[in-house]
């Protein structure tokens, strides 16, 4: 899971304060593992330093000043590139794939095309592993099988998610930024 890119994605959805970003992150991506405030502000500080977000207003709050963050063009380009790029086909990718799908739907990007790209990427890797199985010994076969079964599980998740995109889009859009 890439916290900086996920926060950038949430900022592309709408400019936001650190507190609201944490709340949205925990709502969509932090089930059972919420993001500590310290990490939110440290990440925002790095993103500001790197020119990916800027502060557009500072307002007084009950405690410390509230800073509102806005994504820059550089930050938005980085989010677009990240979303469109298939994740390296390795086992146990559900959480990062899930994050990308939710953000893509939130930002009105072609989540179905991204999932197709992911499927192609996974199948290309599965073809390589199948070739290894056909030419290798039993140990290579068994190792390739282990990877193939995990990649297949990922692909089943990709297929199920593709079938549920409309419902997921509706559910996500019910939560206003």
């Amino acid at each position, binding site marked *: 899971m890439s916290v900086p890119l996920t926060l950038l994605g949430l900022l592309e959805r709408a400019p936001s304060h650190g507190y609201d970003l944490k709340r949205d992150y925990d709502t969509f991506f932090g089930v059972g593992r919420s993001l500590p405030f310290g990490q939110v502000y440290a990440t925002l500080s790095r993103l500001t330093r790197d020119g990916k977000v800027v502060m557009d207003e500072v307002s007084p709050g009950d405690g410390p000043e509230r800073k509102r963050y806005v994504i820059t063009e550089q930050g938005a380009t980085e989010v677009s590139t990240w979303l469109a790029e298939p994740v390296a086909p390795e086992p146990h990718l559900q959480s990062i794939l899930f994050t990308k799908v939710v953000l893509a739907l939130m930002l009105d990007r072609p989540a179905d095309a991204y999932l197709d790209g992911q499927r192609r990427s996974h199948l290309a890797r*599965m073809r390589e592993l199948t070739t290894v199985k056909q030419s290798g010994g039993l140990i290579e076969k068994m190792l390739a099988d282990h990877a193939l079964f995990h990649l297949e599980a990922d692909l089943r998740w990709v297929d199920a998610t593709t079938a549920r995109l409309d419902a997921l889009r509706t559910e996500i859009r019910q939560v206003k930024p």
Partner: protein
Amino acid sequence: MTAILSATGVELSFGATPALRGADLSVAEGEIVAVMGPSGSGKSTLLHCLAGILAPDAGEITFDGVRLNDLSENARSELRRDRFGFVFQFGQLVPELTTVENVALPLLLAGVRRDAAIRRAREWFGRLGLDGLETRRSGELSGGQAQRVALARGLVAGPRVLFADEPTGALDSLTGEQVMDLLVATARDQGTTVVLVTHEARVAAYADREVMVRDGRVTTPAEAVAP
């Protein structure tokens, strides 16, 4: 590579239910293509149109430069017998015949003399690990054995194209793998083009490439998805 088989804008409805809504697919000679998609997407219907089993309502199917749309039912039937081979999910062997007679069936239907047909059918038993099963009936075979017999039957007449519809769908993963290993090895050996319908990614991974069918259309997105 030259396309041996293609579908262009193929549409087909069953009553009021559209199954194909403008499907396009081009398959090169010697290529193994996996056709994937969810249940009800139209992938098996597309295979049946490509194989001349079903005639499309619109669009065209060409095989080796010939428009299948222009052929009579008899001519399409001859094409299926002489140029195409088939393997289905459940072997669909004829239960009254022995396995060697089942394998010889396409040759017998094509007019090959019985003794020659049986001899050619027997050659496939060693190749597919079926030695000793020649005189059994389909009810005496395991699922994997029956599917290997079906594969031998699909390939015995030296088809230009083998159509395989969920060939491992009824088998466990290891047995399915043996069938796919044999299917791919023999198809490559003979230069047979294969159109493989499957919903299983591990089976599709045996193909040279895969296409997705959704809502009656072949969706083959560009290699790169623009941000």
